[in-house]
Each structure stands twice: as C-alpha cells, then as structure tokens.
C-alpha cells in the first residue's frame, strides 16, 4: 500500500487539501473525496471527455491526470462556472438552444467550450466542431451544441469588457 | 487472434552443438526475454512465467510448457506453451516447432510458431502482435546465439540433453522484456521496411 501524499490545490476558487495515493486519478478525487460530481466518467481510455475540467487555463481530461500532479494547480469544474447566482453565458445558451438531453456529457462539454471561448472568442462553426471533438455526446448529434456555443460567443462578445 | 511466424536465424556453431543447446529447455527459456522456468514437473513438462513491461504496467503470464515431441534424427523440437496473465484478463498459447539445420557457415535455427491471444491482450495488443512477436524472436535469437558461441568456445561445458540441473541460467543479455525498447525496435524496423530494407 502506497503512503498517501498531501496535495493542495485551488478548486473553483477555493483552496482544498486531500491526502491521496500517488495512483489516484483526479476524476475520482474530485467526485468522491471533494463531492464535485459534475465531471463524469464515461470510459477508461480517455476518449469520451465527460471528465473534462479546466486546469491552469487548459482543458484537461481529469481521468488521465493523477491528483498528485495537481499540486498548486488552479482547477475549474462545471460547478465553478456559475458566479454569485449568475449562470455563465454558455450554461444559459445550452438551455436556450436545447443542447443537452440526458445531461451526462454536459458538464465536460460546457467546461471545454468555456476554454474554447477564452482562447477564441469568435470561432467559426468548423472551429467549434474541431475544438469540441474530444467531447462525445450520444443524445444531441452536436448540432444544437454548436448553436449554443455560437450563441454564447455572441453574447459574451456583446458584453462590455 | 492468431499470429503465425516462420523465422530462420544463423547460429555461430555446428548443428550438433546448437541442437544440444536446444534440448536444454531451461537454457532455452533463459534466452527468451522475460521468461523463466519456475518448476520442472518432469522431463517433458515445465511451469514457467513470462513478464512484459510497458512503462509502469506489467503483464505476467503464468503457465505450462510441454515438450510434445523430440525428433533427434531431424534435430527438431515441438513445444507447446499455454498461460494466463496474473490479472486474469488475458490468455496466450503457443505452438512452436524449432529445428537446427546445417549450413555453410555453421548452422541455422529454424522456428515455426503459432501464437494465440485471448482477452485484453488480443483486444489491445492485436494490432502490434506480429511486430512484437518478431522483435521477441529476434532478441531470443541474439541471446541464444551468444550462448551458443560461449558454449562452442568451451566445449567441455556443453550440458547433456534432458538433464538440465536447476542452476541459474548464464546471464542473458536482456533479462526482461522492456516494452518501450520493444516499441522503439518495432518503429525502427517499420521505418526500415518503408525504405525497402527487409528486417531479418
């Protein structure tokens, strides 16, 4: 049995500390120790993207990251997108455009789209589809997801800086 | 998932010397990278293990080896091996006929084998099985040839057939099958084959 290591990092703006074995995956730490069940598990080969979170301004599949690698990191999950009771433009857009059905891919999808719009505030449809290719969905066929990202992009662009 | 292989390897000694080495199953096993004979049930049946490492992950196959047939006149050996990986997720079996033939430069070790995989190894390893088997045999042949050369240089030490005592094998050049080194060797071979040079 490996000796648990202490790992501290920031989760949705708040500092957290956990004691984990070196082999523990971030997705399990988030979901089971830290009770953030937004990111989901859909596979074990890092294809589906349901576990997508945002670490130090990058989209990361948390099933492929060891918690010990996150020492000092800034981690953002779907739970951190709503600020002071206000939904992020993406969250609203997903509802308005019917971009979700069962909801299982949604946290990862929105978290990924969040990073996309941070990097590229005016993506074309092709760019959106390319960027979101790491997040699988079985219910929507992606068409409304693309519309939701476009709608959120417009809304964010129209906001005063 | 079956792989069939036929390979011929040049050996630096006369056919008789190589044939004597071939019948020492434990010595042969020691030349197979990652393999070990753990128990000698009788002169035809052995238990053994083969370990494969890829980075931090290890597959440890545990199984039985049977010397099905030994044809002294033809200098040929028929081996059957069968095992399961210790996590219980993969199975493997091998049917091998190895023979020694004289050549102008000494002799040739000719191997013909069929390897079948089950479980995770087949699902994930299937696509690289041919190349992996190729590389494993090449390493084996190199180890075996080195042993043969050492024995040929000191003929009084050649072991008698069937009576391999349970002494530790002479140090083989590579003790375990390192998956990353394997991968690099596979890539090198593939690149070479793209440019027309057939890998031996």
């Amino acid at each position, binding site marked *: 049995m490996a000796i648990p290591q202490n790992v501290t990092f920031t989760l949705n703006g708040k500092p957290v500390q956990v004691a984990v074995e070196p082999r523990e995956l971030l997705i399990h730490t988030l979901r089971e120790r830290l009770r953030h069940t937004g990111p989901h598990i859909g596979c074990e080969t890092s294809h589906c993207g349901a576990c997508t979170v945002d670490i130090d301004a990058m989209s990361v599949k948390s099933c492929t990251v060891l918690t010990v690698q996150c020492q000092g990191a800034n981690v953002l999950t779907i739970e951190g997108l709503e600020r002071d009771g206000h939904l992020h433009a993406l969250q609203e857009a997903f509802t308005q455009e019917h971009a979700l059905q069962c909801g299982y891919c949604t946290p990862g999808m929105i978290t990924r789209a969040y990073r996309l719009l941070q990097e590229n505030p005016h993506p074309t449809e092709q760019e959106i589809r390319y960027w979101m290719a790491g997040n699988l969905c079985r219910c929507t066929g992606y068409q409304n997801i693309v519309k939701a990202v476009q709608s959120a992009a417009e809304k964010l662009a129209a906001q005063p800086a | 998932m*079956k792989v069939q292989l036929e390979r011929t390897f040049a050996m630096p000694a006369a056919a008789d010397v190589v044939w004597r080495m071939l019948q020492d199953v434990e010595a042969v096993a020691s030349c197979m990278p990652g393999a070990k004979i753990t128990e000698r049930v009788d002169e035809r049946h052995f238990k053994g293990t083969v370990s494969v490492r890829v980075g931090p992950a290890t597959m440890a196959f545990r199984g039985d080896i049977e010397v099905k047939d030994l044809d002294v006149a033809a200098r040929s050996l028929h081996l059957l091996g069968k095992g399961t990986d210790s996590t*219980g997720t993969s199975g493997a079996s091998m049917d091998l006929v190895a023979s020694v033939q004289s050549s102008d430069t000494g002799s040739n070790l000719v191997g013909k084998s069929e390897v079948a995989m089950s479980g995770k190894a087949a699902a994930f390893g299937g696509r690289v099985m041919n190349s992996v088997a190729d590389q494993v045999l090449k390493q084996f042949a190199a180890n075996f040839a080195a042993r043969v050369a050492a024995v040929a240089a000191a003929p009084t030490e050649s072991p008698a057939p069937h009576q391999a005592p349970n002494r530790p094998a002479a140090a083989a050049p590579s003790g375990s099958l390192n998956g990353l080194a394997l991968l690099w060797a596979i890539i090198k071979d593939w690149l070479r084959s793209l440019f027309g040079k057939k890998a031996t």
Partner: protein
Amino acid sequence: MPDTNVIAREREDKLQGMGCSRKRKEDARFIRGRGSYVDDIQLPGMLFGAMVRSPYAHARIKSINKAKALTVPGVVAVLVADDLKPVNLAWMPTLGGDVQAVLADKKVCFQYQEVAFVVASDRYAAADGAEAVEVEYEELPVLVDPRRAMDRDAPIIREDIADKKEVGHGPRTHPNHIFTWEAGDKAGTDAAFAGAPVTVRQEILNPRVHPCPLETCGCVASFDKPTGQLTVYMTAQAPHLVRTVSSLLSGIAESKIRIVSGDIGGGFGNKVAVYPGYVVAIVASIVTGVPIKWIESRIENLSTTAFARDYHCVGELAADRDGRIRALRFTALGDYGAFNAHVSATKFPAGLFSICTGSYDIPKAYCKVDAVYTNKAPGGVAYRCSLRVTEAIYLIERMIDVLAQNIGVDKAEIRRRNFVKAEQFPYTTALGWTLDSGNYHAALDKVLKAVDYEGLRREQAQKRARGELMGIGISTFTEIVGAGPTKACDILGIGLFDSCEIRVHPTGSVIARLGTMSQGQGHATTYAQIIATELGLPSEDIQIEEGDTDKAPYGAGTWGSRSTPVGGAAAARAARKIKEKARKIAAHLLEVGEGDLEWDVDRFTVKGNPSEVKTMKEICMASHTGNIPAGMEQGLNSVEYYDPPNLTFPFGAYLCVVDIDRFTGETKIRRFYALDDCGTRINPMIIEGQIHGGLTEAFAVAMGQAIPFDENGNHLGNSLLDYFLPTSVEAPHWETDFTVTPSPHHPIGAKGVAESPHVGGIPCFSNAVADAFAHLGVTHMEMPHTSYRVWQQCNALGLNKR
C-alpha cells in the same frame, strides 16, 4: 374591445402547453453539474464491487482461488457462484424467457462473462482484489459463426438446458437452437413467388453493434437488515419490471423492494435488462449489511451488456414488371449470444420483426427468424431499435432499392407505386399489424420537392459521366412503437400498460407521477405540457416524477418509444378525469347545469354569459373546501392505467446525398433531409433534438460501427479505441421537416418519435452508398461503410486507377 381570440392565445401561451417549444425543466440541474446519476450516490458505509471476468469465450472453470484476493488490503469479500447457490441466485431469469448465470457456474460461455465479485472499501482496492483472484480455466472449442451453430459437431454451449425441449418460445431442434418464429402465409407467399415475373433476392447483414450510452450501467444496492427493506439505486429504464423480477428472484416481498432510477445518462435500450452486476450487488449488500456500489467500466459495457442486431438476413421480393410488389419473403438467422436475454414479449421472441412489410401495400408476406446460441454476450434488442424494427425496416428499404435497380425504375417512383394510400388507413398488413394512420405520398413528395430530387438525379448523371461517385439514398419507413396492448404485449407475463397519477394542489400547482422513465427524452417537460393543456394550468407549475417505484404507479418503463403513446395517453386521460370533476365543481359554484358550461383554455364559462367564469386555479382551491357538490369527495386527484388498443405507427421520408472519393473511399454526407410524422407534436424543439440524436446514431451504425469477434471468441472492438462514436467533426448537418397525421386511437393523437430517426436513418445512409455504385451493377454493400470498406468496393471495380 380586446380581440377575445388574442386574449385566449395569450392565455394559451402562458400555459406553455401542447405544441410549444418551451425550454426544458430538467436543464437547470444538468447545466450546473447537479444531476443525480447512480455513480454520484454516496451512502454511509458503502463498499465497492468489482467483477472478475473470463478472458476466454468458452471454457470450463477448474478452480477459483479467493485466498490471495482476500488478503489484499481493503477487500471484504469475494463471491462466486457457489456463494449464490444457497440463496438460489446463481442463475436468474432473463427478459427473454431463458435463464442466465449470475456468476459462472462451472463454465463460461462468452468472453468477459462474470466469474467472481470482489467487494472492497473503495474502487482501487476492489480492482486490486479482482486482479488477485486466481481462476484456472480449461479452454473449450469456440462457436462464433451463427451459421455453424446447428452443425452436427458444433460445440454445445448451454449444458445447463441441454435436455430442455424449449426455452420459452417453442420446440428446439438442436442444443444451440433457441427458437424458430414465423409469421404470415408461407404457402400463399411461395405461390406468389412462383408465379411472379420478377423476383429479387439479396443477403443482407445487420452487423452486431452496441448502443454505448455515455453513462455505463451500475447500481447502489442497500439492504437494511432491521427492516428487511431493499433499496436499489440503478440505471433502470423499467424500474417497476426490475422490482418485480427482483422480488421473484430474491424472495423478498415486492413491497419491501424499492428501485430508484434517478438521472440516467442515456439508455438507448442498454439499460432495460437485469445484469449480473445488479444481482451480485444486491446479494453482497444482504451478506455484508452495507450499501454496495457496482459501476461497470466502458469495456465491460461494450463486452457484456445488451448489444444490438446480429441478424443475418435473406430478403426476397416478388413483383410485377412495373415494380408492384406481389409478395415478400424475409428470413433471418439471429445470433443471440450465449443466453437469450432478448427483451421480448412472449408472443414475439423476434420482437416486432413482422413490421417488415414497411410502408407498402403487399398482398402476401411471410417471415421467419431462427435464433441460435453462440459464444458471445447475450442481448439483441437495444439501440433505439423498437424491438427488431431496425432490422426489419433495413431489410425492406434495402430490398425495394434492389428491386428498383433490377427493373430499372426510379427509387422514389417505385415507392410511390407501392405505398399504402392515405385512404386505405387504418390498414392491416399481410403480417397482421393494423397501421393506424399515415400519408406516405405526401411525406415523400414534400421531401423530394424540398431537395429538388430531379435536379439531384440530373447532377448525379453528369457526375457519373465524369467518373465521379455520388449517391442518393431514400428511406420511407413506417415505425411501430408504443408497446402495447396487453393482449399481445407482455414481458414475463406482465402487460405493457402504463400509468399516470395526478394530484392537484389547492394553489393550482400539480404533481404527476408516471410508470415510464426518462433517460434524456425530456419527460419532465413534455408530460407537463400535455397536462397543462388538458387542465388549463401552466406547465411551469406541473412537477413530473418518474423512477421511484415506491411513489410512481406501475408501468413498463421507457424503451421502444412507448412513453408518449402509452404514458402520454395515461397522462391525458388522467387529466381528463380531473377536468370532468372540475366541470362539476364549476357548475356547482356557478349554479348552472354542466351542459351550460364551455371550456376556454384555462377556465369554464357559462354559455351566452362569458362574464360568468371560474378559472381552473379557482376550482383547485374550491375542491379543497366544503363548497363542492353534495356527495363528492374533496380534492382533484386521479390515476389512469392505460392499456393501449394498438401500437402507433409514426413514419417518415428521409433523403441522403453522399459524395464518395473514388481514390480513398471517403464518404461525405453532403445533405440529409429528414421528414418525420409522429402525429400530434408536443414540443417541436424536443422532437428535433431527438431526430438529431437518432440520426447521429444511425450515421454511426451505417458508417462505422461493428463489434467483431475473432475465431477464438475474442471481442476485438470493445473500447472507444476501436468502437466508432461520431464526434462533432464527423457528425453531419441535419435538416428536419414534418407532417402531422394524428393517430386516431390515441387520446391526443400523438405517436412516439425518438426511434424513428435511427430506424429510418440507417437504410437511408446505406441506400445512398449503394446508389453511388448502382450504375456499375452494385446492388448491395454490407455495413459499416467505413472508408476502407468503400475503398475496397472502388478497388474491386477498378475505379481508383487513373
């Protein structure tokens, strides 16, 4: 003077009831990551279970050694078949009338079959424990080709039923034979074939695929020793059926079993069956006295849970020279895997395959399905298939194209010549189904006009002259959904009715509970819309609950697009019962006769005296007071158990245009136009979402999915490394359209819709690909149409040479 119509419309809009594309009520939690899926559940003292599975497809188990596993830190118990025998749970009944091993008893019959269950403190310890269980196998010869299953020397898979003369569906002729089922008039059909001027025959494969919902199957089983109460949180599309089966299996009274399905991350038919994992988790909970969580991995999901299709078919049509079909003869060899876990009604072991006459008026028909065991995982009915309807419609839609090519008639025209005409409805097919309503000509014409079909054919001719490959695929399908009338439709004897229980509160809001179970279809929104329009109360104030068997009235769950046809009907009728009572109360309050009242969106008015009004909201409060007719009970509550008189038959016309690169085989979907008719449309936005999703799954099946096995029974495509799930890059752009032909027998005229795009989409893609090569004599190409396989066709025809 305000326009009363405008005011009425404003009041109607405020209800957000039937027909409006209101946003979904369930979204609020999902966009915040606050859904409650089974793996989100954590209970005090909960332990984890991991399955030990066989790497071999067919083997005897010589020994199982738990000793090492039990020493792994954190491991609490290891269960094997012998541990389940004392409680009679080593074997369980399937929903197909067979039995299935919960944990392998002396032999394994498919790769990854469950052998042992390790219970530990957390998932890592459980995985360590599973690796340490030592199982000794003796391999047996493997049977993977269903065509060899009935050979004299075929390996016998099911020794446990070796001397059973039947397995739930009639006599069997070989140890690997499950059943033979047939429908129609064989003699009449054979005679029609003998006398027909044109006959066509084609072997058509529906390859084995898997629904692969994004969330895998799992449960948390919690047995409370003091009360004897068993609670199982699980991914169950049919929670009540699971409760009944669990009671029959375990001997625990059904009143002490509670099945709770919370949010489910996609079902698609994968989450109807009872899997061994659920049963061992329940046993482990009973044994340890604490909750046990079992969540399968993706590989386990793809390898062992309900797969779809694997029907090897032969299609034959007999016709006149102008393409009028005289007779249809379809046969199929079904590879059902090692156990028959095929969800099916007792009378329909091959599902609703006999819908294979499709949208056409065919006088004589005969179909037959032979089912066999092989060394593969059990299942067969799943993946948005409406119970084998995907197989049936694939066959007829491919065959009509084969016929069209054979006699040189245009593929749209041949369909027009054979369609059931609008005036023929209700129309009873030669195989016994009564199609409730339809207008196939109008649907097809609308699509052909929208895409300029003539123009596309002209373009195709020009492209062919230049040696380019372009294909046009048409699919005019009729679906059969809404199982179903209890006289014909049952599962393990339980009729496939469904239910809705409504309670109206004094302040005018409502809670309604149903026996169906959403896995993303938006029931919390659509059922609320139905009730809103019936009762005149805003859908925003109508709570819908499903999935908790302690609270919800009995139902058969959600699969086969049955929710709207059966659950929706129950909701409408339950609401109407309440409205009738409300009318009586209104009459009492307004001091008039019931016949003097008129219903106006959300209120009763007195005929000829519109200022005399009682709104539904006022009546809700009044019903809880003493001011109600003498002898009447308080409250506005009702429950309806609905036994549908028939299934419903949604239909559609799809058209697909593909461009194929003759050098690489790469197939681009240039355009896909989908027109669906599901009768009355409850929420157009939700319908469109279902169409997008079903078409994307159809695209996946037609263009890239397969579950291949090698000769040793090794599962070669059981992870997302190999199994094709379209991403946002591959998914085509969908254009949707509709017509409305209500169902005459349904209370609101609605039919199901969510499976139509899958059933109708798959042949549309395949027809397009085959059509691209039609001018070169190709009549059929087997799925999946991956670039490599299409390239192989190009190569065979020499098209990739310059």
